[in-house]
Every structure is written in structure tokens, then in C-alpha cells.
């Protein structure tokens, strides 16, 4: 590597110069780091950026910008391939602390020191690029979702392998009568147009279809997946879209609603087929909503489409014979989105809605309802047909395959699904121990039979749907390069599934293109670094292979960790897990963090100035703090903020280093862990909480109070709350007293 030449640029704009003494900052760079800083009144203007660019042309190969937060002016201070480090003198310094104050000056100086001290520890990353990458996208499942995905991916110029386990394409749509309204005014059932979708896929030269195909094995990583089929053929693909859809809930478990006792009690899926063939001749039909849904004994969730489907079926009946009496017995009518229009149409058409719980269905089809609106139990007599609106079970497993011996444990993809994750040392009131709620996982074997160290299954959420976060990162599973779309991801109807397919295609396209460039995917899009493991120091403890939220690290035959770089999402959870700090990225490492922790000047206990370290997650906590500063909230100037990629990347060594150099307290601020996590890397903050639960004993053995180290949750919307959280922690630490290790 060429000699490192770091250029340091100080900006006095946006009130920084008026708040802190810039000449003292210059002196620090000169005397402590032997670097020649350049000051500018507005570094982000063309003149300022031109100054930096001129220096880069003159040989500078690393840039430290001491100006605003690293989250703003990112484009202005991007000088790739030269790496830029940022010291925040604006948001977390002058905007959130009083101008001209001694403590504000010390804060600015420390932030500059942190940037300068860490600069020698990192370098511009070299991407992992290795041989051939496939740009081909495999779509598993040939229903509405899969067909749409195949057509869309082909339209984007990618070769598509469409895999269908049965002998015909079209999926459940083939059995459907009409579809829910999907074009304005959304008021009437619309025609089943699966044929046009089938024709579009068949016409595409980029789509190759594999029928009667079952995946037996999937190995590799994004850009390099090798998929083996039951016929022993092997296909190489770059990304996989799972569009396996759903299966109806097993109605034989619904004996209490009369299923099985009479052939006149059918499921909504059977009803759909009857409507398609025109074999319904009933004059009085009752639809029982939530049949086996939102019921702790059956499916605990709402499938979101059964209400609209019953409305559609009732309308189809009334259209055929206006004299038909249709009763919809519901607990809550759930008509998300535009399905409300269908509800109105059904009301206008005279469908009768009865709110209440079904007490029983007799052999003569008498449905007894505890009518909530009239307030009495009423028997509905004279019915010809009872339709049970059953819910959707995701095909996140292969129902035809044997369940693997590890079963649900593997399916959830956690280290130990039974072990409660203890969250210790919360500031304020400690939450109750977090225990996993009852799992609802579909039966069956793995879909892809992944050859991953963390197991063959695609990890699922608590209700068995294969996604990793419905709102924040839809389509993304916890296996990079493998995306889910349609009802396997969450319950949805035809048009939603088609929309979903398009979203997943864009993710898959991004995956194959990023993989071949060695670049990371969401949330660290474009990051070229990847974990490098120094195997000479590795103790084969396997913590990295177990803790990686995305299963990126396998074990080789000698049980050493083996990184699959394109599976990696660059959170650094492996780095935080490694007890011998042998995992690092070119642009991120334990030394990068500890050098920043250690460079801060710790005043002695006679100064009356404590020092606290706030290790904050870049995804939510840092933006929330920036937002707090933009609102001119203030917090204690005794706190030093250290941004990290994810709390999962925080090694306990960072915390013990901080306490041994004399910090009085350490606060970890990150996203919400647990079942309804908000962690951008799924398990990072939970891992941090788990590690922290073990730090209390260590602190006690060091004769330190366990309260000195806490973890708090922060979300992006917490900007008004966080300053108080920080100040309360400072007050708590001040009460405990100074760290006795100070000055050693």
C-alpha cells in the first residue's frame, strides 16, 4: 500500500467558528497528530470542495472533514476511491451545546481527536470480486406472484428461471372464479385474467420454465447460487425470489364450525371452485368469517383477504340470482385499502352483516350466533350452504417434504429459540424479561434446503411468514440474495401479490448487480468492505458463525469460519462477537472503535467533569440525535458519541477499554430488540443486549457498579426524548461517583 497521506479540513461555517476556538483545533491536529489542517469558512461550497480535490490531486489519499454530521453533505464530501472520515463539529457539538463554553470546546476537540486517531486504522476498502457471477434470477413458484416476478425480471433484462413444482403454471388463480377489484372504482368483482399473465410469461424469451421441479439443495451465495433439483440437474443463479404462496388452513381442524359434519359446509377455497364451475345452487348462504383465524387455538393472525373474498363471493351469488340471501357473520369486518368499496357494494346489494361469534353449526345447517349488535343469541335457520372463511398459511416450508429433525428451531433461525433474551441494565425501569411467544410455524421441510451453517430453512417471523421486517425492509429474508414476495411473506390478495413481486424483483436485481461489484445491500448499500478473518488467531469458538444474523459465515472442514462475502450485510455482528478481535473490515474494526475511545482526553476527578461514552447505532440513534440537535435540544457536554454500524458490532472489549481508561459510564443506544424488533440487522441489538447481560458480573469483579453500563432503545422518532435520556444517565453516574480507574 502506498504511504498514507491524510488531509485534515476544518470548517468554521454554520456557526461552528463562532462557537468554538478553531485555532485550538488546528493546534491539536498539528501537535498531537502531526497533521497540517486547513480551515475554511464554508467547506461544502465549490471553493471548499475544490480545496480538498486539489489536495487529492496532490497526493492526499485519506480525507478527514471536521464539519457537519456524517449524515449530511455526503455527496459533497465523497471523493471515491479516497476515503473520507467525518468529525461532527456541528450537530453533536455546536448546535446542541452552548457557544463559547469550555465544555463545548473540549467536546469539539475530542470529536476531532476521535476522527484523527481512527484515521490510521482504516483504509478505503477493496471489494471482494471473485470470478463469474450469475445475473440470472430464479423464481420459485409459478402462481400470480411468481409469474409477475418472472415477467418483470425479464423486462429488466435478466434471464429468469421459473420453477414450478406442479405440472402447470398459474397456481391458485387457476381455481379462482373472479378476482377482487383491482382497478377503479374498485366496487365490483373483476374477471380472472390469469390467462393474460400466463401468455405474457410464455411470450418472454428471457424466461425459461422448469416444471415438476423440486429443489433439493441450494448452496452458495448471492451471484453464485447453485441450485440442485430432484432430477439432479444443477442451475446457477444470482438471486432467488420465493413466490411459493400459501396453503389454506386445514379445515378438518374446524369441526366446531361444522366442517366435515355436512357436505354443505365448505371452505372459501372450495367455494371459489364451486363458483368457477357454476355449481352453486344455494338460496341462503352464510359466510363465517375468521374461521380458524385470529384464534389462539388455530391461526393467531388475520389473513386480511378473507373478508373481501367473502364479500366477492356473496356478490357473485347475488349477481347470479338476486334472490339469494347472503349472511356474513363477522367479528370485525376488515377491508384494507380499497376493499371498503366492495363492502359498500355488498351492503347496497343487500348482503346482511351479523357481528358476533358463531356458537355452533348444527347438522341441519342452523348457525347459532351470539349477535353482538342486537345483544342476543340468534339461530339462523333455513340455510343451504355455510362457507368458512379460512385463512392463509404461508408456504415458507415445503408441505410435501419431510420436516427436518431440527424443525421450528431451525425455522426461526435463532441461536437458541427457547432461551429468553435477557435485557439487562436498561436506564430507567427495566422491562420484563423478553420471552419468545408461542410460535406458529407451518409444517413441512425446507423449501430450498440451504447448505448454510445456520440450517436449511429460510428463517421466518413469529407467524411463520418468511420476511424479516414487514415495514422497514419488506421482501428481504434473513438470507441475503433470497427474497420473498406474495402470500409467503404476508397474507395478501392477487393485486398486492403482483405488486409485491415487482418489489422483490427490484431487490433481486440489486442483489445480483451488487454482488458482482462486491458491494453491500441494504442497509449499507454500496459498502465495499467485507469481514476478513485472521485465521491464525481464530480459536474456532464459532460465535461468529452462530451470531451472524444473515448466516453469512459457514464453517470449513477444519471448523474455521468461512465468510461468504456476498451474503454479508456489513453489520459487524461477527466483529462484535469475536472474543479475540480477529475479525475486521478494511473500513471498520475493533481498533477503529477503541482508538476513538482511547483518544478522548479524560479529565481527572478533581476537575468535576465526568466523561461518558455513548455508543450509538448509525441507523436510528445517530439520526435521532442529529434531529435533536437540529431542533436545538441540548444535552450534557460530558458525553462523547461514538457512532457504530450496529450495536451488534460492539465488542465487550470496547466497553472494558472505555472503563479502564477512565470513562465514568457507557451507554449503548440502539434499535429495539425482541420479537417486534426494529434493528436494521435483525439481531444486532438483541445480540448487544445478550452480551451486555454478561457484563454485569465482570463489572462487579472489577469493583465497578453494574449501573455504569446500560443499553437504551432509540427509534428515529425519539429526538425529543433522547437528550433527557442522556442527561438522566449523566445524573445517575454523577450520583454513583467517578470511575476509580481514572488516571491509572
Amino acid at each position, binding site marked *: 500500500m502506498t504511504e498514507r497521506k491524510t488531509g485534515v479540513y476544518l470548517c468554521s461555517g454554520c456557526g461552528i467558528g463562532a462557537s468554538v476556538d478553531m485555532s485550538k483545533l488546528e493546534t491539536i491536529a498539528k501537535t498531537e497528530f502531526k497533521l497540517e489542517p486547513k480551515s475554511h469558512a464554508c467547506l461544502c461550497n465549490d471553493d471548499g470542495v475544490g480545496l480538498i480535490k486539489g489536495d487529492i490531486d496532490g497526493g492526499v489519499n485519506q480525507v478527514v472533514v471536521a464539519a457537519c454530521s456524517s449524515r449530511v453533505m455526503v455527496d459533497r464530501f465523497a471523493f471515491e476511491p479516497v476515503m473520507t472520515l467525518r468529525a461532527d463539529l456541528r450537530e453533536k457539538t455546536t448546535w446542541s451545546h452552548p457557544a463559547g463554553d469550555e465544555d463545548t470546546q473540549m467536546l469539539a476537540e475530542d470529536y476531532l481527536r476521535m476522527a484523527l486517531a481512527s484515521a490510521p486504522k482504516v483504509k478505503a476498502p477493496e471489494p471482494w470480486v471473485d470470478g463469474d457471477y450469475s445475473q440470472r434470477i430464479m423464481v420459485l413458484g409459478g402462481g400470480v406472484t411468481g409469474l409477475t416476478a418472472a415477467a418483470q425480471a425479464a423486462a429488466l433484462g435478466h434471464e429468469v428461471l421459473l420453477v414450478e413444482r406442479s405440472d402447470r403454471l398459474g397456481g391458485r388463480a387457476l381455481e379462482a372464479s373472479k378476482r377482487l377489484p383491482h382497478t377503479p372504482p374498485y366496487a365490483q368483482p373483476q374477471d380472472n385474467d390469469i390467462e393474460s399473465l400466463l401468455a405474457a410469461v410464455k411470450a418472454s424469451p428471457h424466461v425459461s420454465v422448469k416444471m415438476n421441479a423440486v429443489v433439493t439443495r441450494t448452496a452458495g451465495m448471492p451471484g453464485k447460487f447453485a441450485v440442485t433439483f430432484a432430477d439432479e440437474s444443477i442451475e446457477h443463479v444470482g438471486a432467488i425470489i420465493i413466490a411459493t404462496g400459501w396453503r389454506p388452513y386445514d379445515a378438518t381442524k374446524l369441526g366446531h364450525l361444522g366442517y366435515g359434519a355436512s357436505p354443505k359446509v365448505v371452505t372459501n377455497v372450495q367455494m371459489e371452485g364451486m363458483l368457477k364451475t357454476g355449481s352453486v345452487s344455494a338460496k341462503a348462504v352464510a359466510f363465517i368469517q375468521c374461521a380458524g383465524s385470529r384464534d389462539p387455538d388455530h391461526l393467531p393472525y388475520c389473513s386480511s383477504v378473507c373478508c373481501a373474498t367473502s364479500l366477492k363471493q356473496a356478490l357473485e351469488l347475488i349477481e347470479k340470482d338476486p334472490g339469494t340471501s347472503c349472511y356474513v357473520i363477522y367479528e370485525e*369486518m376488515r377491508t384494507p385499502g380499497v376493499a371498503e368499496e366492495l363492502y*359498500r357494494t355488498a*351492503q*347496497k346489494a*343487500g348482503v346482511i*352483516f*351479523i357481528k358476533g361469534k358463531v356458537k355452533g353449526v348444527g347438522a341441519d345447517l342452523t348457525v347459532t350466533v351470539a349477535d353482538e*349488535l342486537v345483544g342476543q343469541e340468534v339461530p339462523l335457520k333455513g340455510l343451504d350452504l355455510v362457507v368458512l372463511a379460512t385463512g392463509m398459511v404461508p408456504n415458507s416450508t415445503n408441505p410435501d417434504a419431510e420436516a427436518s429433525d431440527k424443525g421450528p428451531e431451525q425455522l426461526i433461525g435463532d441461536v437458541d429459540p427457547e432461551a429468553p433474551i435477557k435485557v439487562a441494565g436498561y436506564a430507567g425501569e427495566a422491562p420484563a424479561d423478553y420471552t419468545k411467544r408461542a410460535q406458529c410455524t407451518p409444517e413441512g421441510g425446507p423449501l430450498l434446503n440451504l447448505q448454510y451453517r445456520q440450517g436449511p430453512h429460510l428463517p421466518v417471523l413469529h407467524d411463520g411468514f418468511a420476511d424479516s421486517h414487514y415495514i422497514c425492509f419488506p421482501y428481504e429474508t434473513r438470507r441475503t440474495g433470497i427474497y420473498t414476495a406474495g402470500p409467503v411473506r404476508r397474507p395478501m390478495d392477487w393485486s398486492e401479490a403482483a405488486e409485491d413481486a415487482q418489489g422483490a424483483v427490484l431487490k433481486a436485481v440489486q442483489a445480483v448487480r451488487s454482488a458482482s461489484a462486491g458491494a453491500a445491500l441494504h442497509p449499507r448499500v454500496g459498502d465495499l468492505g467485507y469481514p476478513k478473518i485472521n485465521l491464525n488467531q481464530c480459536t474456532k469458538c464459532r460465535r461468529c458463525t452462530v451470531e451472524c444474523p444473515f448466516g453469512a459465515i459457514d464453517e470449513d472442514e477444519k471448523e474455521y469460519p468461512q465468510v461468504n462475502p456476498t451474503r454479508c450485510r456489513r453489520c459487524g455482528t461477527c466483529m462484535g462477537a469475536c472474543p479475540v478481535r480477529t475479525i475486521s473490515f478494511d473500513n471498520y474494526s475493533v481498533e477503529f472503535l477503541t482508538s476513538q475511545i482511547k483518544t478522548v482526553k479524560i479529565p481527572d476527578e478533581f476537575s468535576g467533569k465526568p466523561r461518558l461514552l455513548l455508543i450509538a447505532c448509525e441507523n436510528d440513534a445517530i439520526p435521532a440525535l442529529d434531529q435533536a440537535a437540529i431542533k436545538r435540544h441540548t444535552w450534557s457536554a460530558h458525553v462523547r458519541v461514538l457512532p457504530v454500524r450496529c450495536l451488534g458490532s460492539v465488542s465487550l472489549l470496547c466497553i472494558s477499554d472505555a472503563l479502564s481508561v477512565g470513562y465514568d459510564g457507557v451507554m449503548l443506544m440502539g434499535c429495539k430488540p425482541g420479537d417486534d424488533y426494529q434493528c436494521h440487522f435483525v439481531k444486532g441489538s438483541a445480540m448487544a443486549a445478550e452480551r451486555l447481560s454478561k457484563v454485569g458480573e465482570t463489572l462487579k469483579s472489577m469493583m465497578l457498579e453494574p449501573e455504569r453500563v446500560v443499553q437504551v432503545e432509540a427509534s428515529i422518532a425519539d429526538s425529543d426524548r433522547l437528550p433527557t435520556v442522556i442527561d438522566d444517565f449523566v445524573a445517575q453516574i454523577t450520583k454513583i461517583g467517578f470511575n476509580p480507574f481514572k488516571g491509572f
Partner: protein
Amino acid sequence: MSASPTPTGAYDLAFARWVYANVDGGDRMALCMQCGTCSGSCPIGAQMDHGPRKLFMMIRAGLKDQVLASDTIWNCVSCYNCVVRCPRKVPVTYILHDLATVALREGNAAAKASDNARFGSAFWWSAAKYGRTDERLVTAKYYWSFGLGGFIKRGMANQKIAMGMVKTKRMHIGMPHKVKGTGELAKILAKAAEIEARNHG
């Protein structure tokens, strides 16, 4: 107008469908989604057997007799809070008033016995006959609906008020006041009845 059908069992739609077709505003009643905004908005909800929300559900449930016997349809004060607030634009007030008419026409005993029905028919008698409401005659007619005993009892109880009104010229003794041309008024009303019969017949 045809008489409303009597449902044969729970959720027999016969009566509900008749209401949708024949009651003023009934076509929109089909759109009621049972949110309860009407009942929650009603200033005299506490003085009703059932709120409008529940009454509509009872119509669907086929509880015709209970609907027509309820005092909900008589106690509505036409403040129109519910009509303004209904998210489905159901004209609740119209429906309640027209249901009251239906109840009377079909001879529902509870409806006929209700105070508001008695007063309403006395009021309409005077308005239709003279084009004016004569306080003395309306009151007398209303009291008379309770029979001789009721007439005397109520008359005696309100004697003082009546005397006061006469003294301050709020009530007169003598021939009832009339509009000019009561014959024309009778023609107008006959025409209205004809239109109603045509629309709802």
C-alpha cells in the same frame, strides 16, 4: 302503500328489504356499517329504548315488532347531529320519522299509545283543518285522546297555565283562527297525498 311483511325468523330479510324500498331514506340504510356514530351523537339517546344504530340492526335481524314498538322512532328531536355525522350518509332522522308513520299506519299498539303520537295527530288535525295550530284545540284534542277521565285530569292540572295564557293573550277564547281559503289548503294536502301514494304505492 303495502303493509310491511312480518319476518318468519331471525335475520329473515323480508322486513329489512321492505324498509329499504319503502321508508324515506331507507335505501341508504342498507349502507349502515354499525359504527354507532349516530347513537353516540344523539342528545337524547338516554331517553330511547335503543339507539338508531341498534334499531337499524334490529331491522336487519327481523325484529319488526320490537322496532315498531320502540320509542326511538318517537323520541327523535330532529337535531340532525346523526345525519351530519354519519360516515355513510344515512339520513337517520328521516328514517326514524318515517318508521313512526309506518308504525301508526300499521296500528302498532305501543306506537298509538305513545305521547308523541297522540300529540302529533292532534297537531296535524289542527294544521290540516285550519292551516294554523290553535293552542286551545290542539291541547284539548290531545287531552281527549286519553278519554274523558284523562281529559278532565289533565285539563284541571293545567288550568292555571291556561288562565295565565289567556290573560296575557297567548291563547284566545272564541272561534278558531283560520288561514284564508281552507278549501285550497285541502286541495294542496290532497295533492301531496296523491304524490306520496304514487311514489310509495
